[in-house]
């Protein structure tokens, strides 16, 4: 508790030490609002409903460097090797992009560069409920680096964009990257994000992503969260969909990172939108994985579909909290949500909380949650055909995850994830 408070105090003084006024006025105002929200609430504890099952305190005990130096990341070539994955490669080192990346129809620039004028004023932090989310508020008040991805009107990306986050953990660091995606009208883009950590000291990432999907645009976001245990990640993604747009999110968390907390918020800010949220968490060791999603139906005739599946091994713990909120104006909403879990260990714990709040009267909504173990009869059936126990478990877990993995639209990524599932499960049974 004391160390948490001191980290809080460090942030407060760090904010005041900043040379406020050096930035544009609109940004100074955004930061001040966020800082007020953060300073009044402080870092969350398990007394906050949103953090009831996720005790963040043990992860904040380190003596972090709060303003990490530009990473001394020498000679990194290819960090995450996804075999036969053909993509535009973008590497962020400690949250920083070194130079512009040019892709036909798409501009990727360092956030610092983009902030020199007022062009981001209509987007930055316009939809994030800062009062409720202290980590997002902290990031907004303090972020230094990140990237802006601007997809031009009607631009169709030929290849996915692969963003690799490389973190230098030679000393304990607290890094707050910021990503802003603005997909113009009628555009289409796929983005895959993955992690790579160098060094063994704790890295705490408090990242915020904002994704604007304009009319008729399509954005697919893939989060491949596989990283070593010293990575602790709190990620807030705010998606804003304009009418007739399509947004797909694929979040796959695999054994490794000690803490992963994802907040995925969708504002359906126009009618006739479609959104798909697919999640898979395969957890092992002492991992804690927490997925909070919020689908905010504000306009009529929108469709959202969410399927999260969890497989828990060892002493791992997972949290699923899915909320669908249908406003009174959002008639003819179709909103579905499902969370299924398999516990492979007696010591693993899952807290699943599906929520529906509906204020419109002509809607079709459903939610559900299940927790179970591997079907022993199915396991025996496979073994009775000569398939070894580990291979049989693998087959069954892959079959359980199939509903989620078969939604991956990029074959190389799909193969990569399926192989990782098999590999990580074999490791767990060694």
């Amino acid at each position, binding site marked *: 508790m004391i160390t948490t408070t001191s980290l809080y105090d460090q942030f407060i003084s760090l904010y005041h030490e900043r040379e406020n006024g050096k930035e544009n006025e609109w940004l100074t105002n955004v930061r001040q609002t966020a800082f007020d929200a953060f300073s009044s609430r402080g870092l969350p504890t398990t007394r906050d409903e949103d953090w009831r099952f996720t005790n963040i305190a043990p992860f904040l005990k380190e003596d972090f460097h709060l303003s990490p130096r530009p990473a001394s990341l020498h000679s990194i070539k290819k960090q995450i090797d996804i075999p036969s994955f053909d993509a535009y490669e973008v590497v962020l080192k400690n949250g920083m992009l070194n130079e512009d990346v040019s892709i036909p129809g798409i501009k990727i620039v360092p956030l610092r560069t983009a902030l020199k004028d007022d062009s981001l004023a209509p987007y930055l932090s316009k939809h994030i409920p800062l009062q409720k989310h202290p980590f997002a508020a902290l990031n907004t008040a303090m972020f230094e680096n990140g990237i802006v991805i601007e997809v031009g009107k009607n631009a169709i990306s030929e290849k996915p964009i692969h963003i690799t986050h490389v973190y230098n953990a030679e000393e304990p660091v607290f890094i707050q990257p910021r990503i802003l995606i603005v997909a113009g009208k009628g555009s289409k883009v796929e983005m895959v994000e993955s992690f790579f950590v160098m060094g063994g000291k704790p890295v705490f990432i408090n990242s915020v992503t904002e994704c604007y999907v304009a009319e008729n645009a399509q954005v697919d976001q893939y989060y491949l969260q596989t990283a070593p245990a010293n990575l602790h990640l709190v990620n807030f993604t705010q998606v804003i969909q304009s009418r007739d747009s399509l947004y797909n999110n694929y979040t796959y968390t695999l054994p490794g990172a000690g803490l992963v907390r994802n907040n995925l918020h969708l504002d359906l800010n126009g009618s006739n939108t479609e959104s798909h949220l697919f999640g898979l968490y395969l957890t092992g060791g002492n991992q804690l994985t927490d997925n909070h999603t919020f689908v905010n139906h504000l306009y009529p005739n929108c469709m959202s579909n969410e399927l999260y599946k969890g497989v828990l091994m060892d002493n791992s713990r997972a949290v699923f909290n899915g909320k669908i909120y249908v406003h009174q104006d959002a008639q003819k909403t179709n909103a579905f949500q499902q969370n299924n879990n398999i516990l492979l260990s007696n010591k693993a714990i899952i807290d699943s909380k599906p929520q529906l709040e509906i204020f419109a009267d002509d809607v079709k909504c459903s939610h559900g949650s299940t927790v179970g173990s591997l079907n022993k009869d199915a396991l025996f059936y496979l*073994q009775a055909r*000569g398939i070894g126990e580990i*291979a049989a478990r693998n*087959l069954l877990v892959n079959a359980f995850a199939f509903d989620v993995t078969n939604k991956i639209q990029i074959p190389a990524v799909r193969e990569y994830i399926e192989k990782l599932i098999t590999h990580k499960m074999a490791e767990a049974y060694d």
Partner: protein
Amino acid sequence: MLSIKNLQAKVEDKQILKGINLQVNAGEIHAIMGPNGSGKSSLASVLAGRQNFEVTGGEVSFDGKDLLELSPEDRAREGVFLAFQYPIEIPGVSNINFLRTALNEIRAYHNEPPMEAKEFLRLTREKQKLVEFDAKLTNRSLNEGFSGGEKKRNEIFQLAMLNPKLAILDETDSGLDIDALRIVSNGVNKLRSSNNAFIVITHYQRLLEYIVPDFVHVLYDGRIVKSGTKELALELEEKGYDWIKEPVTSESV
């Protein structure tokens, strides 16, 4: 091939098998009959290695190996095949991928390389035809949404693909209409050879009109109380099981 001596087993605290003796040689078909609850399916489960059965006595040797010491998968790899009374539905695992995995795991156990894709395809086609198994079902999820008859035919298809030394058919005839029964029986008859053996567990004599056994055993109260040739099955059909029960009951008094 298979030698069962004084096999005893229990589930939870209930003694189910109370001393089974059975000798099965290559080329033979043995039928095991008996009333409900006599231990027929339990015997099949114990031989296949189902976990909730605890063997409390006796021994089972299969081609000289102690079968009871082996894991379920190793029994299958040694050549024991159980056609399930209630085949399991496994959504998300394709029938064909399941068979390829099973076949290659068995081959790996015998230090053989994985089967080439082309050869596997040829084998699949051949066996599908042999047991009249619908090719469309091969690519579906394992038993998912299959009718009762389709599931049983899938068991025989798997049997054909894996080519075991000893096949135990656990009430494969139950729930089959007469056409399905004929197809399943034809499959078995085509697969039998002088190198393999079958144990056919059934309730009714009907199946034995199609699959003609060399020996018929009557299981009652966890023991084989009578053995004979195929004529015994006819006698049972005619008289029912009551006349079998009497001597055991009086013996135990």
